[in-house]
């Protein structure tokens, strides 16, 4: 049964994709027949979540290796898709293009960082961790360096980084659910959590893997379709990626013509465009770009929910191959994001396009349905602050997070596309939240409970503990998400900085420096993590950033501290024993048995 499923993956997901396209067509027909936009939005979100839940239920399991590593039988291409969905969060899908729209050059560091990091994953981490045969990232730290203390510290860092990240994802899924289903945000959060748990609770990693593949297909269709449509309408062809260069030049001209000036009177929660689309200043701008990219890249290579995806492949070679596929699938979205930001901006600014609003009369703009819809929920505002009756660039206010969600309406696309985008954003947020919750619950159940607290626990108890933890952590994250402490993109950057401050060097040097020992690893994890956290505390409470390293980049403080502490302490203490050194040699060899047994 299981074997035949793996063999039939192509057919299963082909049918699924075809079915989804038919569903989109059906919705388009319903829209033509006069079904309301609200109903279509509800159908999109409800239908896709029902499918994920069905996959989750079909993948239920009571086997340890199926629960933790999907039985190590996920083919490279499918693991690539699952990783891409795991990776591309609500932040990538919903907030990134909006960040570029408002932040220009500086925000593109996220794009470079979130793709370049995979080169590090492939070169330094994934194949070796796969050879190790661990279930979780702390499993590697605990075995390579020995001792429960190292394992415990790794668990703590994993939990802090992943938990910061997961609250942002549940926040995003709640925001989308609230809007699509027209329920209050606090209900939306719990509804989102319910969907997330349905995908992961019964089948652990196996269920999450197969739902993530399904979620990737939905999210990539939902991201690319509006861009292609919009580009075609603006005359840039159906593949805008290689032809929107003129739009970049045109925006620069228009920005010069309109002038990028602050609003006369700020409106809380929404912003006007003040940063040029493409005008890097060199010097400090370059430094800020590069430091953000470094933190995101090192964070990519240290985030446990990503690394653990490569534990599910059948072999070391398949792990490497699946990193390549992951990046290809991720790249498809990331190289579309700047195109989306550019084309959306152009269609609002360029007076020769029918969708333009800047320079038009305020009354005319206020009468547009999409302006009214988004203004009604406080995410957009138009205000004639200079009283000339015309809309100036600095009189159009928008919340950056809504750029992607509002694009179909701005471009005048049928509502079915908006429903599709909502389903895609939901898929992105849910898939990442699932991966993160599973990473946390598995580290606590496998590393803390089974390896440290009760090594004699039997399989059934371990898997029940894992599931109870999943629900408890999910509920805690949802509770914090309802408080809305930070913005989506900010919380995500923090998670990367926590992870790279504490885990990057202990993981890399565990493979690449045979001399690295327990004391050094402990020092590296503790000093890096504490230095980074202390610096975050300092800048977040109003301290002056040192060399422009603000709260998004505190990994630039944590990582060097971690490296120095690890090297110094390792060299001051004895080399690891023969057995550990042999283990490192074994890890570097791609063939042969894994270090840890298939069930441990």
């Amino acid at each position, binding site marked *: 049964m299981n074997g035949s499923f793996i063999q039939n993956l192509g057919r299963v997901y082909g049918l699924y994709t075809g079915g989804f396209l038919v569903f989109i067509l059906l919705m388009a027909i319903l829209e033509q027949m006069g079904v309301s936009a609200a109903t279509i939005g509800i159908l999109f979100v409800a239908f896709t979540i029902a499918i994920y839940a069905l996959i989750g239920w079909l993948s239920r399991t009571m086997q340890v290796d199926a629960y933790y590593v999907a039985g190590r039988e996920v083919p490279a291409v499918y693991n690539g898709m699952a990783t891409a969905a795991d990776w591309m969060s609500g932040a990538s899908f919903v907030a990134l293009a909006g960040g570029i729209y408002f932040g220009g*050059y500086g925000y*593109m*560091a996220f*794009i*470079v*960082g979130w*793709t*370049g990091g*995979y*080169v*590090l994953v*492939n*070169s*330094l981490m994934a194949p070796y961790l796969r050879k190790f045969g661990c279930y979780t990232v702390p499993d590697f730290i605990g075995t390579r360096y020995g001792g429960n203390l190292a394992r415990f510290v790794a668990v703590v860092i994993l939990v802090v980084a992943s938990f910061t990240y997961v609250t942002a994802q549940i926040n995003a899924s709640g925001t989308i659910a609230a809007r699509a289903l027209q329920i209050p945000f606090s209900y939306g959060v719990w509804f989102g959590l319910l969907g997330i748990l349905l995908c992961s609770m019964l089948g652990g990693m196996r269920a999450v893997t197969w739902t993530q593949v399904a979620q990737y297909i939905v999210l990539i269709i939902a991201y690319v379709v509006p861009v292609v449509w919009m580009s075609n309408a603006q005359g840039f062809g159906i593949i805008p*990626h*290689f*032809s*929107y*260069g*003129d739009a*970049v*030049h045109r925006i620069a001209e228009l920005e010069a013509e309109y002038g990028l000036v602050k609003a006369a009177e700020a409106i809380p929660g929404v912003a006007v465009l003040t940063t040029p689309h*493409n005008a*890097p*200043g*060199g010097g400090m*701008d*370059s430094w800020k*770009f*590069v430091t953000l*990219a*470094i933190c995101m*890249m090192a964070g990519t290579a240290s985030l446990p929910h990503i690394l653990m995806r490569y534990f599910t492949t059948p*072999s*070391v*070679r398949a792990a*490497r*191959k699946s*990193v*390549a596929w992951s*990046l*290809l699938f991720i*790249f498809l979205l*990331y*190289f579309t994001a*700047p*195109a989306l930001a550019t084309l959306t901006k152009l269609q609002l600014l360029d007076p020769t396009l029918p969708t333009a609003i800047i320079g038009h009369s305020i009354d005319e703009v206020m009468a547009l349905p999409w302006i009214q819809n988004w203004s009604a929920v406080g995410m957009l505002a138009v205000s004639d602050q200079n009283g000339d009756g015309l809309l100036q660039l600095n009189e159009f206010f928008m919340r950056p997070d809504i750029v992607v969600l509002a694009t179909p309406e701005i471009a005048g696309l049928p509502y079915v596309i908006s429903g599709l985008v909502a389903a895609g954003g939901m898929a992105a947020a849910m898939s990442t939240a699932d991966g993160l919750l599973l990473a946390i619950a598995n580290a606590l159940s496998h590393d803390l409970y089974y390896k440290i607290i009760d090594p004699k626990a039997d399989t059934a108890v371990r898997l029940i503990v894992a599931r109870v933890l999943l629900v408890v952590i999910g509920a805690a994250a949802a509770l914090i998400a309802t408080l809305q402490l930070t913005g989506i993109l900010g919380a995500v950057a923090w998670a990367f900085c926590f992870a790279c401050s504490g885990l990057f060097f202990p993981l890399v040097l565990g493979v690449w420096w045979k001399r690295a020992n327990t004391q050094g690893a402990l020092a590296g994890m503790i000093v890096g993590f504490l230095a980074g956290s202390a610096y975050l505390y300092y800048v977040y409470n109003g301290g002056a950033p040192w060399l422009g390293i603000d709260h998004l980049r505190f990994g630039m403080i944590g990582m060097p501290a971690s490296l120095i502490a690890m090297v110094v302490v390792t060299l001051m203490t004895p080399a690891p024993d023969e057995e550990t050194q042999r283990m490192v*040699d074994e890890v*570097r*060899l*791609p*063939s*042969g048995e894994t270090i840890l047994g298939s069930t441990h």
Partner: protein
Amino acid sequence: MSADADARQRHWAKTRNLTVLVLILWFIFSIIVPWFTKELNEATFLGFPLGFYMIAQGSLIVFVLLIFFQNWRQDAIDDEFGFGEE
């Protein structure tokens, strides 16, 4: 046994060299090129300002190709020493 140890050592040396090469290319396209976006914007590529093009697409394409390249070379190294497992 010693032949095996020798093979392992040479396999690791080659693996390490490949990794260093990949990381140098990675450094150029993830750090150096974005650093000089302003200067590169003077040039035009496919109708884009070159600096913008590189951080929006060019470097990303290089990363994808780089990983496929590395895996192709690494597979060859593994097979050369009989450590390819498939």
